[in-house]
């Protein structure tokens, strides 16, 4: 049913009315273009933030100690205290909801440059961790291997180092694996360069500047005794980590003679809660994208309709003349509708392509920015874009139909004389 004549008529009419065609097309183009760019940017923000946390176990909780705030069992308030290694076994044996448990010790961080290798020195965050820690906060070995259970058992002096540590402590061509670093006075062999999969940061400092050594080695090498500074746990499937968090807090308070109503003595934090917050944030961003998108679309629709209405006069007379020389109403309406559909679809397509193009350029720029940007992979929802285009096309048809209907419903002579 392709009517070549109809199309050449339409295209020549559009070509000859450049300004009118351009303005109509621009309204549609802009609506679609903005919608694409906006929703892409919203999605990029979401991707950027979620990529940074996705690999993190969402069922994890963390515990540290603070000074007590309530006097209890003969202890005054303001007491400093620590967890103990016996807590580890106790929790493992008695709290069945715990999946992974990883205690942590913090290395000496006050001493300025705590790591030395020949003439190189640097200040890094040193942690003593269980291998299970890597299952909670995902790290992957970029080179070498992660600290494992045998390292723990044999209390080996080995370490995993972050990428920044490699940059500072080693030359460009040096392979760090197998080399030794003097950390707070004790030599450790580098067995792996590790890369953080998430940007959630427990314990402060940059993740690239991390040195992880086995918990058992740290305890013995630096005389930590039975102290434990920090716990990470994950809950077993089917258990809410928030419930587990409360249960462990109660239990730890009991074991360390902390008042049950002391809100300050145990610091804790669970990722589940943070994820709920994140999700609410993205719901908000998505909602905003939609509101602005619909607003932009509405502006486009109004723009298209407005332009179509503005040309009523010109069109009415033109249609009157066409009718006087033999155009039937059906022909006239077919022409105008085909004209608007053609125009809006073309403009929408260009808007769609350019919008996607802009997002692609943005993506390339972002890729160069590396991992640190909270903004990546701008994507668009094709269904959303196509339905927006459909709305604009329908608006274009209606806006085209109004003058056409009017021009064919009045007497031809009135249409010709229309001023």
């Amino acid at each position, binding site marked *: 049913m392709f009517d070549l004549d109809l199309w050449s008529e339409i295209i*020549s009419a559009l070509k000859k009315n450049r300004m009118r065609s351009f303005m109509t097309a621009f309204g549609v183009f802009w609506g679609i273009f903005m919608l694409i760019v906006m929703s892409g940017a919203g999605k990029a923000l979401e991707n950027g933030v979620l990529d940074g946390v996705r690999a993190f176990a969402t069922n994890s909780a963390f515990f540290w100690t603070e000074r007590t705030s309530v006097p209890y069992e003969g202890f005054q308030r303001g007491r400093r205290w620590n967890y103990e290694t016996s807590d580890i076994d106790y929790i493992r044996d008695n709290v069945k909801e715990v999946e992974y448990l990883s205690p942590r010790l913090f290395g000496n961080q006050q001493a300025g440059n705590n790591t030395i290798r020949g003439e190189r020195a640097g200040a890094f965050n040193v942690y003593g961790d269980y291998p299970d820690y890597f299952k909670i906060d995902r790290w992957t070995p970029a080179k070498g291997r992660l600290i494992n259970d045998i390292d723990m058992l044999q209390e080996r002096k080995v370490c995993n180092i972050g990428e920044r540590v490699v940059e500072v402590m080693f030359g460009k061509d040096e392979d760090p694996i197998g080399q030794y670093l003097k950390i707070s006075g004790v030599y450790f062999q580098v067995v792996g360069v590790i890369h953080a999969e998430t940007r959630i940061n427990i314990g402060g400092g940059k993740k690239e500047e991390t040195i992880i050594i086995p918990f058992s080695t740290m305890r013995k090498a630096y005389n930590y005794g039975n102290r434990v500074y920090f716990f990470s746990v994950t809950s077993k499937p089917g258990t809410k980590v928030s419930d587990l968090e409360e249960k462990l807090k109660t239990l730890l308070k009991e074991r360390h003679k902390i008042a049950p109503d002391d809100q300050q003595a145990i610091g804790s934090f669970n990722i589940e809660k943070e994820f709920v917050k994140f999700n609410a944030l993205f719901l908000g961003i998505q909602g905003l994208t939609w509101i602005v998108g619909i607003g932009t679309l509405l502006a486009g629709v109004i723009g298209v309709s407005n332009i179509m209405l503005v040309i009523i006069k010109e069109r009415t007379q033109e249609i009157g003349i066409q009718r006087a*020389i*033999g155009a*039937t109403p059906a022909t006239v309406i077919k022409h105008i509708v085909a004209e608007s559909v053609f125009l809006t679809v073309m403009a929408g397509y260009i808007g769609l392509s350019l919008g996607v193009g802009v997002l692609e350029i943005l993506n390339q720029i972002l890729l160069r920015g590396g991992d640190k940007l909270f903004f990546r992979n701008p994507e668009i929802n094709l269904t959303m874009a196509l339905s927006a285009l459909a709305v604009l096309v329908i608006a274009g048809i209606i806006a085209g139909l109004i003058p056409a209907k009017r021009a064919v419903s009045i007497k*031809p002579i009135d249409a*010709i004389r229309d001023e």
Partner: protein
Amino acid sequence: MIRLNNINKSYVMGSNSLHVLKGIDLQIEQGDFVSIMGSSGSGKSTLLNILGMLDNYDSGTYHLSGNLIQNMSEKKAAKYRNDLVGFIFQSFNLISFKNAMENVALPLYYKGVPRKKRNQIALEYLEKLGLKDWANHMPNEMSGGQKQRVAIARALISQPKIILADEPTGALDSATSYEVMDILKKVNDDGITVIIVTHEHDIAAMTNQIIRLKDGLIHEIIRNGELKQFQKEYTHGLEAAQIPSYV
């Protein structure tokens, strides 16, 4: 060819009704060259528009080539207009964004004639009217006389039985007006009925029959033989009317 029987037409404007045609009886035969005259508001344009099916009438009957033209669908009216009638307007009414050839070819587009063929026919008509070199010009690049000749070519291309012209020379100077009238005369010589509305006596005098309207009625019909007399009367009248302004 054309039979009007007691045609009445009123324009309703709010609560006022303006009775424009008050019972027109008229017969025009195939091949006639007719002018309709009358003062402003006498209903001459209204009559022409009714004849061309651009406007409807309130009562009476109108037969065109044996068909009763009454309450017909717009689709049917469009077909009649396309087949039977060619229009020429005072303000030319060319489609501004189409060139001369495309304007002329337009009626054939509505008849479904393929582009190549209709453009070729349009060129032939433009050649007949001496505008072949102007075929690719847009209306705004042409003089009034040229535009009116394009409009005439457009009216002729569908080979109508009747040409209806509303003040075809109204926007032209007298030399160009006479050229246009010559063309219309030639059209009429080919057997096409030509009906023009004019208020210029010299233009009317070139037709074979003058219908004078007055207050919505046919005041008089001056036929070919009486034209000379009419012209003389008109000249006297004009002189008489002009005298006071020179005194």
